[in-house]
């Protein structure tokens, strides 16, 4: 699944086709003197009728990854608003079916639709559904340069969570090495990998941090293959940014401490589970639902991490007891700083892998520099694949 920022190759052709189709539709609309973006504001609905809310998933809601995290958010929405809303959910694999599904939801009167991560935006152009609020995870303007006014989006950038995870991993590895598996070399996966590396280096400046990219989000076996590669090369603790808990299984099988991601994945390999960087999307979904209910919904973009409370650090691992007390205290202190927004993982002096100075002492990267990150930090073993 799907934080595809930039997709190479085949998909761009699909995106191109869809974009052409979108342009044709826009042309037709223009000829008839209509405005495609009209009616994106509040929706008139009878006070008594419940607001119809839909969640469209990309993978099974028990994938232990993004879909599970989102499904937990859906359950939070249902629990909070009860009979004020009527909720449905659907699993639709990536493809043109996404559009059909959204169309039928809109036709059935759904006014607030949550789309899962990136791939659905390759097919669904929210601008075609004026009057419906669409919340698209990580909207990056594939179909349309700017986000339509009926769309909201959120980005989870977990560099801070992985910084803490890196500290913990470096303190328990028995090989002097840790490793991280990135999905695709997009900026937030690089930021998260760098956060992991910097956290590990903060505990042990001599630590070797191995980085590998699978160029794939969904395949469990590819991610597991990568995990085996890292462990073979000597990584004594691993983290991963791909969907699902596959690498955790491999680590547990080999007795290697591992870091969970997105949802509570402990169960797949509890005996060597160390810690987790867990999502809580509920506050985001509650906000959108509340606004849609009260008619105050407006398009917005959220960059969220520990500071916003949408990411938490899970210390319930069986191996957490092996983290030395001193490191635990350092992690707790750092976590407080991250949560209060008083620190970021990327404070100077910060050097790129090439040795180039990125940020001087006393300065930190600003949020744009983090969301545009395209380098690995000094001391990381591994390279960013092209494309």
């Amino acid at each position, binding site marked *: 699944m799907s934080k595809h920022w930039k997709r190479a190759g085949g998909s761009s052709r699909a995106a191109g086709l869809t974009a052409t189709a979108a342009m044709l539709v826009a042309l037709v609309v223009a000829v008839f003197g209509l405005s495609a973006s009209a009616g994106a504001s509040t929706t008139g609905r009878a006070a008594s009728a419940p607001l119809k809310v839909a969640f469209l998933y990309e993978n099974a809601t028990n*994938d232990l990854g993004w879909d599970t995290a989102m499904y937990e958010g859906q359950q939070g929405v249902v629990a909070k608003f009860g009979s004020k809303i009527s909720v449905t959910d659907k699993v639709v694999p990536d493809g043109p079916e996404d559009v059909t599904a959204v169309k039928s939801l809109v036709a059935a009167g759904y006014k607030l639709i949550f789309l899962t991560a990136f791939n659905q935006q390759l097919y669904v152009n929210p601008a075609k559904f004026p009057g419906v609020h669409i919340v698209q995870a990580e909207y990056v303007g594939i179909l349309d340069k700017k986000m339509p006014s009926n769309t909201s989006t959120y980005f989870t950038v977990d560099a801070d969570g992985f910084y803490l995870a890196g500290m913990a991993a470096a303190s328990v590895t028995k090989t002097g090495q840790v490793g991280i598996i990135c999905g695709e070399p997009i900026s937030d996966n690089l930021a998260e990998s760098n956060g992991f590396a910097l956290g590990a280096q903060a505990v042990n400046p001599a630590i070797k941090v191995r980085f*590998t990219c699978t160029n794939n989000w969904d*395949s469990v076996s590819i991610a597991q293959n*990568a995990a*085996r590669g*890292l462990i073979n*090369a000597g990584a004594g603790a691993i983290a991963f940014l791909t969907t699902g808990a596959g690498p955790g299984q491999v680590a547990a*099988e080999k007795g290697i401490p591992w870091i969970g991601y997105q949802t509570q994945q402990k169960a797949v390999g509890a005996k060597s589970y160390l810690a987790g960087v867990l999502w809580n999307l509920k506050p985001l979904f509650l906000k959108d639902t509340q606004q849609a209910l009260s008619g105050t919904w407006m398009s917005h973009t959220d960059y969220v991490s520990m500071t916003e409370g949408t990411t938490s650090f899970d210390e319930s691992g069986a191996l957490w007891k092996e983290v030395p007390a001193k490191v635990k205290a350092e992690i707790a202190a750092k976590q407080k700083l991250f949560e209060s927004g008083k620190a970021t993982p990327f404070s100077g002096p910060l050097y790129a892998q090439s040795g180039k100075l990125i940020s001087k002492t006393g300065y930190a990267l600003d949020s744009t520099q983090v969301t545009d990150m395209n380098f690995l930090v000094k001391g990381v073993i591994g390279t960013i694949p092209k494309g």
Partner: protein
Amino acid sequence: MNRGLVIQLIATGIFYGTPMAIAALGELLAERSGVLNLGVEGMMLMGAVVAFWVSRDVSGPNGLVLIIAVLAGAAAAAAVSLIHAFMTITLRANQVVSGLALTIFAGATGLSSYVGDLANLGGNPGRHIMNAINVFGLKDVPILGPIIFNQPALVYISWVIAFAIYWYVNKTRQGLHLRAVGENPEAADAMGVSVTRYRYAHVLIGGALAGVGGSFYTLVISSEWTDGITSGAGWIALALVILAFWRPAGVIAGAYLFGVVSALGANLSARGVQLPPEVFSALPYVLTIAVLAIVSSGWGRGRFGAPAALGVPYARDGG
């Protein structure tokens, strides 16, 4: 020392090569009896999905559940191969067409996918995983430790199967009959050997072994079910049989070569050598084509050719 690239590649290569080896050994038996079964990929997927299903829903001690799961996977794949046996042996249908139909029917978008949906297997981690065994406590012995003494049970079982097949084909009376059926069914028939019975038996055993190979993906490598999880291993197994000139030892060696190639990308990337991942994804298939090209044009063809009656339906009246 045991963390060195070469040792780890060989150890991981054996690991990844094993499911292909087991499936190819099964196909070898079917082809030795004169029946080409191109349905290996579909049968492997059926074995994979059923074994995973059983491992999730049967409770009991880890070892016992895994044994039952592997056997269930074997039985499911054998059941699929029965279709091929009936079509090609009893009805004397074209073996290529029937085999291809089998892979489509049972394959990534077919029955195996349907079973996975039906039992809601997708996205769930397995409850039982076949871990590597530390044989005689020797896993840290230099060089041989990780390669030979720290593999999951099915790896060792595959060695036993390979040897058993070698012994059976070459050293037993039934093996002689099998070869006769594959090389010259008329002669075998005249000797009083039932061609139909031999062919049915070996197609079914071949199917069962494909199922065991498939179960390796969901019980050992991934411990999870996704559609098309074998991703072409069945086709590689078919090529392996040819590459090995229909000999078990060759199947094992060839499978490990493919295993090493499968593991190469991840192991190099973890050591800081980054080549496009697409190259590594394509390598096993490139190797398949290369092997087939070399073998078909090759020097050993005359001596080590396919069973003479491979692909030819047998009818006593010559029909």
